[in-house]
């Protein structure tokens, strides 16, 4: 069983080394993102050239076009992720109160989470009335959607992905857990997505962790005073 954990956050008193660490992390993640892009770009370079071949039969041309469409979408998603990663490092996060329940409702209704693909469901568990959290609503939502999307993609029909929100020591903790041991390592796109979620939460001085198999991701933000 794989159980790699990435822990981020901003421990007090080590701001300088954390800043250096953040720069290193940004460079490494961007390099990994470019590496991930090499896969769809390889297929695209190939299909474009094969489409130009006069010998390609009509059935093969259709297949190359379908493949091209898939890989263009994949490359766009990766570029979007890289763009968001740059923005997360480029601009300050908003620090404003928001209701956890609103965030959770928006995340579970997000069209990016395609439940129909795996027939899995999301079970939300919230302990009582949660105080308002302090942070960047948009970035937190993006991180939560990313975690749910990966958990769903690793699930099978009938699985129930759990989203638990609890108040813990003055902060809001949201944990996404997939019940299934999938036996695989996360692919480069999933890793990049998690790196973006990490950057989004870290930019709010929050804390983000994940384990690979079974997949779980957890994020923590302080409550508004």
């Amino acid at each position: 069983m794989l159980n790699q954990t990435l822990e981020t956050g901003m421990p007090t008193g080590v701001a300088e080394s954390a800043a250096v660490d953040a720069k290193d992390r940004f460079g490494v993640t961007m390099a990994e993102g470019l590496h991930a892009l090499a896969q769809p770009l390889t297929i695209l370079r190939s299909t474009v050239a094969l489409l130009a071949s006069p010998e390609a039969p009509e059935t093969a041309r259709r297949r190359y076009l379908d493949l091209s469409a898939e890989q263009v979408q994949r490359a766009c998603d990766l570029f979007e992720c890289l763009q968001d990663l740059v923005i997360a490092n480029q601009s300050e996060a908003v620090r404003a109160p928001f209701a956890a329940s609103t965030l959770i409702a928006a995340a579970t209704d997000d069209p990016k989470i395609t439940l129909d693909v795996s027939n899995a469901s999301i079970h939300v568990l919230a302990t009582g009335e949660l105080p308002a959290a302090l942070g960047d609503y948009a970035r937190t939502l993006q991180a939560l959607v990313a975690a749910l999307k990966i958990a769903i993609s690793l699930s099978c029909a009938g699985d129930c992905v759990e989203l638990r929100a609890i108040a813990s020591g003055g902060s809001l903790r949201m944990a996404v857990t997939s019940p299934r041991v999938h036996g695989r390592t996360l692919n480069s796109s999933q890793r990049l997505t998690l790196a973006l979620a990490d950057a989004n939460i870290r930019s709010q001085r929050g804390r983000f962790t994940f384990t690979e198999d079974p997949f779980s991701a957890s994020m923590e933000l302080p409550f508004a005073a």
Partner: protein
Amino acid sequence: MDGSTASSSAGSTITGMNACPAEAEPSGAFSALAGRRILIVEDDLSLAGFLRTELQSHGLTVEIVHDGEAALSALQGERPYDLLILDLNLPKLDGIHLLQRVKPARTRILVLTARSRVEDKVKALQTGADDCLTKPFSYQELLARVQVLLRRGAGLVPNCSKVGDLVLYREERRVERNGRRIELTPREFAILEFMMRHVGKPVSRATLLEEVWNMPADPTTNIVDVYMKYVRDKVDLPGEVKLTHTIRGVGYELRDA
């Protein structure tokens, strides 16, 4: 081929085969290397699948695995590969460590990498790779490099094999019997080429299905029998000494009388 049956030009009917792009006759440009076995080790499922489909369309027998440990296990199996296409960045065991642990004697190695550092390529070449290709590459370039590597590797197998008055030239993809030129399709050539490597030994239908079609044993299909008939009709003309023999309950054997 659509559906579970297909008619051949010779009138025989193939049964039990599902629609499969790999079953199309391999394209002519690369047919000299038809039947060569390739292992692709690539963790990106889309890219691995794409490369497999394209290489199979050129008549190559292709297997894919998605991590270093599975690759190690495949390479330690009994059936050697002619070529290993290896991505360096792999889960469980990376490409360089894989090369350090296993050096298949007759297998050529083409390394794929998205790492732009020269040191990575140098290390791969120093660890046993024969060639290196940086992503994003174009399939046409990969195919050309595969062709060169397999040609080089083919030196380990003699270009020419003989059984009685039947002669097969691998490099030229030419078959002659007593001076008579025999025209074979790429698939027929792959069957005969495999039989030539096992002269005097019975070869089962399951082995032919696996080696020539890269498909697991399937008692419901008669495709091997149908293609074997095509080969036999071309190789053994009336009045000639019979070289292709049916071994009842087993498969086929190529032998001189």
